[in-house]
């Protein structure tokens, strides 16, 4: 499952970041790495983009970009 499958405020552990190129690297550099906890804070009124919380800060991402963040719920 990926981040977009999470319910609001559900905490999950990142297992992988798929894709390649600049977008993936940017995600990684923002601290979205395997073995990091992530949580969806809110969704925009039209359901996209969504805001996640990671490493103590919040970041807005589009659904299609967030789909590459694979997670597991413990």
């Amino acid at each position, binding site marked *: 499952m990926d981040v977009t499958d999470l319910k609001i405020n559900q905490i999950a552990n990142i297992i992988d970041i798929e894709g390649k190129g600049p977008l993936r690297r940017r995600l990684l*550099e923002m601290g979205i790495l*395997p073995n*990091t906890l992530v949580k969806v804070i809110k969704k925009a009124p039209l359901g996209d983009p969504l805001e996640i919380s990671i490493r103590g800060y919040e970041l807005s991402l589009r659904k299609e970009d967030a789909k590459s963040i694979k997670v597991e719920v413990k």
Partner: protein
Amino acid sequence: MKIALVGNQNCGKTTLFNALTGSNQHVGNFPGVTVDGKVGQIKNKEKISLVDLPGIYSLTPYSSEEIVTRDFIIKEKPDVVLNIIDATNIERNLYLTMQLLELDVPLIIALNMMDEVNASGNSIDVNKLSEGLGVKICPISASKNQGIDELMEETIKVGKNKIMPIHIDVCEKDSPVHRAIHAIMHLVEDHCEKYGLPKRYVATQLIQKDEILSKEINLSENEVDLLGHIICEMENDNGYDNEISIIGMRYNYIDRVVKKSVTIKSTQTKEQIRSSKIDRILTNKYLAFPIFILIIGLIFSITFGLVNTYISDLLGNGLNHLINIVHKEMDNADFNIVLISLICDGLMTGVFSVLSFLPTVVVLFFFLSLLEDTGYMSRVAFIMDKPLRKIGLSGRSFVPLLIGFGCSVPAVMATRTTASEKDKKLTLMLIPFIPCSAKLPIFTAVVGGFFKLDVLVILGLYFLSVALGILVGFISKLIKKSKPTPFMMELPNYRLPTVKNTLLLMWEKAKDFIKKAFTVIFVCSLIIWFLNSFDFKFNYVDGDTISVDSSMLSKISSFITPLFRPIGINDWRYCASLITGLTAKESLVSTLTVLYGSVDLAIVNVNTGQILAFLVFVILYMPCIATFAVLRKELKSTSLAILYMAGQTLFAYFMAMLFYGVSLLC
């Protein structure tokens, strides 16, 4: 001495810049307000300059801001790099620091927003953090002006004595990443020395397959092979690919340092808690759009309703009165009739017609700065991203487009906050499709005199123009097949705007506007006046002995009139009005008035098809010269700006032709 100020977006960099230099750069609560590097002199220290570099998250060069910053540090070699960090978001901010450490330059850290950290009950042991990173750290609060003097002293000390960061091996000993980095550092040692590059930085960049760098340092084929082999081995041993390995190594080290030095009592600061409460309403599923429409509606009705109709008109009348007085005084003093016309009809009329817009522009920017400073603007980008993506734009382009309904000039200037160069270009291309408020007088004058259902026709024209803009965006998305720029944005905390910052922005915009009025508009008014007042033998056209028909403007207009026949325009006076409309759209009305006697007389001998084609052309053809001037500045290319304008005009021409053609068939 040269100090480079480096940090993430929206971490208080510009506020610190202002505090250190005593200058008055506009500070935004919107990520990415600093676009070009700015230079200032440190207060009371004349020979020390501070360079404010654009806000970046990393030094990996794939956005223009990152390349600017990286090149500045490596090639310009500032005496000291001042890295500003948002203490409320310390892990992510330290990522850039880890990369700066690899560059091996004199470095000092300003730990900003310490007041917010302390207020939330959390604490940061600055000494331990400093020890962990091997760099001097000064806790500050840039907005409250705390710790600034000490920071300045320490920064100068580091710069003067060239104090390098204490070397710390951030990767775990004997880990696969450690082995790879050291093997590559050994491999590229000579190259690094030759090109003056720090080898640790080169090694980590090469592991991340930075091709620009690998070409820059001229690796031999053999070395490239060996490099690939080392990376492959690292990936196998580590279980992660090259990028996760390197980036993960940096974050692992950050985790270790932060664990030792940061005590967390509450995961959110007071400001963050307040912001999420406000967001529960402002980005609420059902309330977000109604509130947004309400806010924008209010701003527009105040700016374009109240201020534009009353204050701008009052100013306009006052300025007209001034022209009359000057005219009378010059008449009485027996000045040359040409000189009077030059000053009154040419310069004063031209410049004043633009100046009368000043209140509207200033008030619009007052509201925009409120939206930006409070942090609401990024919420607008957040909620509008999905619809805008359909035409290949991101949420950040929405605000400039919206401003376009007021005036294209500030709209073009506002494109600086778009997400990428590509988005900026497309946004700039679409702005002319948003009918600016200066076109409204044309519509009310022309449509009001011709159609019974004037409001419907005007609304229809607005709708047509915006719909064509959307169509153009849609087509360009299909042609380029490019994906929209990734939308990755932090929603900043809501903040109360400061009076100083708001006034500052208004002053800056007013200054820009006045400057423009007295340069571009000044020259254009002069040219139009000249063409309208003289014939080709340079006789003054007084309207009595030499008729208006013989002026250069009339001749030129007559000459190009055949060009406009396909769109139904047969009269040179219409062409003349289109030309003068380029200085400012509303002067189109005044030209028609001067040449015909009144607008109502101008539309007596034309049919519905002609008038519609004319209006379609007017709503779509190139924006005024002032817009062109700012467009040229934003695109950083005269030829590209001309291309945009020519394309826009050509498009308008074909659309008008279509309308006229259809009307002939009916």
